[in-house]
């Protein structure tokens, strides 16, 4: 039943104009409503995604349309030690940073789930690292990691006296890698903590009361109540976190730009260096395309976690 039939029935009401009737046509309205969003996403997301895959198989350079070269870009990358270094560091960076973020974030969420004074203020403060532009906080970290004037070195050497020499945060391979991971964890903790806190607040307190009556220890309550009930939300947050850590660009670009000696390149920064800065669009696109399998894996992970959640709650698909 539509409004149009109603207007025919009540004669007293003025007849809608043809424009009004057009806007009451459901198919037209659906089309009109979806047009901006779907149009934008098609032109600036779906099309470039396809174009990127096509570019990866060409030798396009900036200012020159490319020829189809088949798997040449990928064959070249497979023999490129720098590419493998970037793959290794991307995986390592994602694994360690995700582990750190979730361990510390879960801890922070459990702390915040207690009865605290000024809780909402505390929550607002904790989210700050997540709000502030990543690049700008990365520059602050860059300054904190300065070889000569690092405040951390000053604390360790001159105040606490636990070291004789200043830290060389960004000067050599492994310290630079760990420093970037630390900065990433710092930025990721708030998001994880606040999301998991929301999950914790949905767990019914009566479960804990029952467990307490049965004489459970704090660890047992965490292991058998908190953790399993938090698992679905944990899986989703983790998927997002993995995707956005793996494709991270800003932190590395701002702090080290891939150095020292290309040891801290992630796949995204390498793609930028080759594709935009170096002008080899085809090769850059090939590196970006090489990230897709990892992302598909993470998405499937999310899908199955969601399915499991619905099954756990015994709820129909709505």
């Amino acid at each position: 039943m539509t409004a149009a039939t109603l207007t025919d029935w009540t004669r007293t009401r003025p007849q809608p104009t043809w424009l009004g009737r057009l806007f009451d046509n459901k198919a037209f309205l659906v089309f009109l409503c979806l047009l901006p969003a779907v149009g934008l996403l098609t032109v600036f997301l779906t099309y470039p995604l396809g174009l990127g895959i096509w570019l990866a198989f060409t030798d396009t350079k900036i200012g020159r349309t490319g020829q189809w070269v088949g798997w040449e870009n990928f064959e070249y990358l497979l023999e490129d030690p720098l590419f493998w270094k970037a793959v290794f560091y991307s995986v390592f960076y994602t694994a360690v940073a995700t582990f750190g973020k979730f361990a510390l974030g879960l801890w922070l969420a459990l702390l915040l789930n207690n009865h605290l004074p000024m809780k909402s203020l505390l929550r607002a403060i904790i989210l700050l690292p997540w709000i502030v532009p990543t690049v700008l906080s990365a520059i602050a970290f860059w300054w904190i990691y300065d070889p000569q004037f690092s405040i951390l070195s000053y604390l360790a050497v001159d105040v606490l006296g636990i070291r004789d020499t200043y830290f060389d945060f960004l000067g050599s391979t492994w310290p630079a890698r760990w420093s970037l991971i630390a900065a990433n964890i710092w930025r990721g903790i708030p998001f994880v903590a606040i999301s998991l806190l929301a999950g914790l607040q949905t767990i019914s307190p009566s479960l804990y009361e029952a467990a307490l009556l049965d004489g459970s220890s704090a660890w047992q309550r965490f292991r058998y109540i908190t953790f399993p009930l938090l698992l679905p939300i944990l899986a989703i947050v983790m998927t997002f976190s993995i995707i956005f850590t793996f494709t991270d660009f800003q932190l590395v670009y701002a702090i080290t730009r891939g150095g020292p000696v290309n040891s801290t390149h992630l796949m995204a920064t390498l793609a930028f260096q080759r594709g935009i800065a170096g002008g080899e669009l085809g090769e850059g696109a090939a590196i970006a395309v090489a990230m897709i399998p990892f992302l598909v894996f993470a998405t499937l992970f999310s899908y199955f976690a969601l399915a499991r959640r619905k099954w756990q709650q015994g709820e129909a698909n709505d």
Partner: protein
Amino acid sequence: MTDATAGQPETQSTATVVPEKMAWDSRARRMVTIYVPLACFVIILLFPFYWMTITSFKPNAELYDYKRYNPFLIDSPTLDHIYKLLFETAYPRWLMTTMLVAVCATFLSLLSSVLAAYAIQRLRFKGSQYVGLGIYLAYLVPPSILFIPLATTVYQLGLFDTPFALILTYPTFLVPFCTWLLIGYFKSIPYELEECALIDGATRLQILRRITLPLAVPGLISAGIFSFTLSWNEFIYSLAFIQSGEKKTVPVAILTELVSGDVYQWGALMAGSLLGSLPVAIFYSFFVDYYVSSLTGAVKE
């Protein structure tokens, strides 16, 4: 599903306290297990901001001399760095550009997301689920794998090095999120209200404007804030699509224009970072609750 979560005020927090008032729970123990770690977290999370702030107000003599001055305090605060930033660089212009881009991208994304979410959730056409799923999947495509082909697309459309390149590309990561958030909001509005309006002879667009949108205002605010902060913070597109120095956005400009040579002007850099963070931090502080509810609501959906 937990669709009511997004808009709901924080009434739960007091009700869901883990029961821990047992005999063993002394004050001291609570102090050690909760307050001390919490204080450490807050200090570590805030330290970079403190350091940023204090560096931007220190004169250069203090900045590089930890022996004579306590590095954690300012001996004689100065506005030199900020003055230099505002009057000797194009910083005000970068701020204006960033603001313009963020506001336009937010507006565009909100408009298209409201319409899309309304169509998917309320008009209930055949295949609406799949459109919803497609938009959700779009959220999982990160900018890092798109920027190279997008750069060529932007170039082909003749938008390279103009603010439109950013205004039109930012919605690619804003629209999926906002749509998803608003679908959740529309779901929580009773359908009966719309049916009543339909029977009273309102058109679909009137219903959207007069009934659904006013009820979804909290959702709109959440989506708006989220979009604004995300577009303010965006980096990779802005780095790749904008070439001329005076058209850059703040995050990119600070990194590419202020860092020159081997000697870094840490005072100016930190002042730039501080000023670039302040607008979004202030904006956020007015709407913290909306922001938190959108963040957690989107995750729970």
